[in-house]
């Protein structure tokens, strides 16, 4: 059975207002500022593997987090919470296990749930990575005017809110790739052409916006012809 968890919407940040001043560059910052960040990084990559999940499922496991869990412990914090979601989805660990262990590690006493019987997704990739060779013809060509559809994906998607409903021009035909919307939920790879589409900033953000071009990748399912 496929369970589609809804995204919280918290990750879709592009174009959002109210975020304050841009960050400061620090050319000398270490790769991992604290030791736990490196541990969380490595453990998350391995958790994706032992859960039988994939990269799109991992991204969605982060997109399901509420704003507190998504932001408060930074990038590797959301990786860790996302990894825990994958481990719970596949019944590798039972909910409450990490909390109980943390209590026991700090002098408390908590009953730890028994390790459940794992249920990994019924899914096997047809190849490594996300790029696929497909026979289907390209529906769009360089220079063509296209519209990013307005979609209400029930689960995962890589179609940002800020592009939806707007018209741009195909700039590059990219390699065909698995569709994150179905791949994240182990429904199908649905490999299809991807296009880098160029939008005018004023089409996206109105006539008083700064003048610039915004290029982003759209999967074929996200696009329709704009006449």
């Amino acid at each position: 059975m496929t369970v589609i968890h809804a995204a919280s919407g918290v990750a879709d940040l592009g174009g959002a207002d109210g975020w304050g001043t841009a960050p400061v560059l620090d050319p000398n910052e270490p790769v991992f500022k604290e030791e736990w960040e490196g541990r969380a990084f490595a453990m998350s990559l391995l958790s994706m593997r032992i859960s039988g999940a994939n990269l799109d499922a991992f991204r969605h496991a982060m997109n399901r987090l509420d704003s507190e869990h998504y932001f408060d412990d930074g990038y590797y914090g959301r990786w860790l919470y996302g990894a825990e979601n994958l481990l719970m989805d596949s019944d590798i660990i039972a909910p409450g296990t990490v909390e109980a262990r943390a209590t026991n590690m700090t002098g408390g006493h908590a009953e730890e749930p028994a390790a459940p019987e794992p249920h990994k997704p019924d899914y096997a990739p047809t190849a490594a990575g996300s790029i696929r060779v497909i026979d289907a013809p390209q529906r769009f060509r360089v220079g063509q005017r296209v519209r990013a559809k307005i979609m209400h994906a029930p689960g995962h998607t890589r179609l940002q809110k800020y592009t939806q409903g707007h018209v741009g021009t195909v700039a590059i035909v990219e390699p065909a790739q698995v569709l994150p919307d179905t791949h994240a939920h182990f429904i199908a790879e649905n490999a299809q052409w991807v296009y880098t589409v160029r939008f005018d900033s004023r089409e996206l953000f109105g006539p008083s916006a700064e003048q610039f071009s915004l290029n982003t990748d759209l999967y074929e399912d996200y696009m329709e012809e704009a006449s």
Partner: protein
Amino acid sequence: MSTDVTADRIPIKLRTEALEQLLVERGLVDPNVMDAFIKTYEKDVGPLNGAKVVAKAWTDAEFKARLLENGTTTVAELGFKGPQGEHIVVVENTESVHNVVVCTLCSCYPWPLLGLPPTWYKDPVYRARVVKEPRAVLGEMGLSLPESTEITVWDSSSEVRFFVLPQRPAGSEDLSEDELAALVSRDSMVGVAEVVVS
């Protein structure tokens, strides 16, 4: 809003240790494998890779032409490939066009060329604002571009990874490829800084 992590918040360092203990105890994770992943991205895979690509492109016109035509296979000539580098598109900064890269939905980044992303790249402020007001954001980050320079923002939403070839700085004419590589900063290869002769 929905979440699957509903228990009281535990400090993240403790939480990480607790999960590692559980997974190691159950034989699911090998701490030596974790150490190897960490060491790879601390020591081996970082912005020096990208800097070598840039310096070679500045000194070898044929290489540069191949790099702009097919980024993935051309950087692989130098041995740079791997996770988060399945398909690399190189975009060139010039007098008239300035490119800057973001991933608004997470923090996609060309790992084989630049390593893991810096804090500023993962900052929600950068992710939210650079697609809407790049000139203002770049200005706040210390890069003031002439009004005549066109800006192109690349928002990475598929598995394509964008890499910026920065402009070669004035005064670098006599430098060797190695000396040039030493000048190229990580931030210039994402498009939030320029390369300068130190």
